[in-house]
């Protein structure tokens, strides 16, 4: 219970700093902190494999990619150019901030309504066996039988993304 609030506070605080920070380098590093806190939450939800994936793939691979690009572009000086950073003075952007606040109210309302039917975690699950939920074996079973088509589709997606990234970032000669 205490750990939930601790990790939740870390995740929200780090995400806010990611969004509001002026230096992209700090943003990337703080996002890794946020991901680590989320991994802790996943362990609290008895999804240890999801937590491991979160750390290895998100914090390990995707964020390193971001960090690499930030350093490659030497981008930390870019943000203090004219018009960069949070601009609350302009009409459309202020509308965006209002929309974000509206969104959090709406989402909290909708999700609490959805959560109320469930009540306590795992109180109403049909075949709620924590051991089966945690095991990688049952996860793999579902992934390669029920979701095998989606799995193959994601492999094609990865190939397309890889080729696309190479084509896009190539220096045309």
């Amino acid at each position, binding site marked *: 219970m205490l750990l939930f609030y601790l990790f939740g506070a870390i995740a929200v605080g780090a995400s806010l700093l990611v*969004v509001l920070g002026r230096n992209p380098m700090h943003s990337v590093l703080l*996002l890794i902190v946020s991901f680590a806190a989320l991994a802790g939450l996943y362990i609290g939800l008895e999804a240890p494999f999801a937590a491991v994936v979160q750390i290895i*793939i*998100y914090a390990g691979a995707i964020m390193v990619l*971001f960090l690499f690009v930030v350093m490659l572009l030497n981008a930390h000086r870019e943000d203090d150019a004219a018009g960069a950073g*949070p601009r609350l003075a302009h009409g459309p952007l202020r509308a*965006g901030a209002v929309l974000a606040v509206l969104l959090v109210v709406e989402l909290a309302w909708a*999700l609490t309504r959805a959560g109320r039917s469930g009540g306590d975690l795992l109180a109403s699950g049909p075949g709620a066996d924590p051991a089966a939920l945690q095991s990688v074996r049952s996860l793999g079973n579902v992934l390669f039988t029920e979701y095998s088509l989606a799995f193959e589709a994601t492999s094609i997606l990865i190939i397309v*993304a890889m080729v696309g990234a190479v084509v896009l970032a190539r220096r045309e000669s």
Partner: protein
Amino acid sequence: MVPLGHYLILSAILFATGTMGVFLRRNVITMLLSIEVMLNAVNLAFIAFGRSQGSVDGQVIMFFVVTVAAAEAAIGLALVIALFRHRESLNPDVFTSLKW
């Protein structure tokens, strides 16, 4: 035991934080980072729902979301590099060639 609603409210707060970043920031890399925050908020909701339903489907979908996030990051960063090479800027207001 933490009730499901608390996880969902946390997920909503994170998602709105990411949305705020996409709207407010004028830096392409920070906007991509905000999208990652939004995807993670959705992951948290999926896993919390999966836990409350007692099924592994939430975790399976979380893996698909991670895969899509990896593809999105690769393409997005390739686009950022290509744009930076042409315009020497990361401000999305500079990239107006397709506007009329």
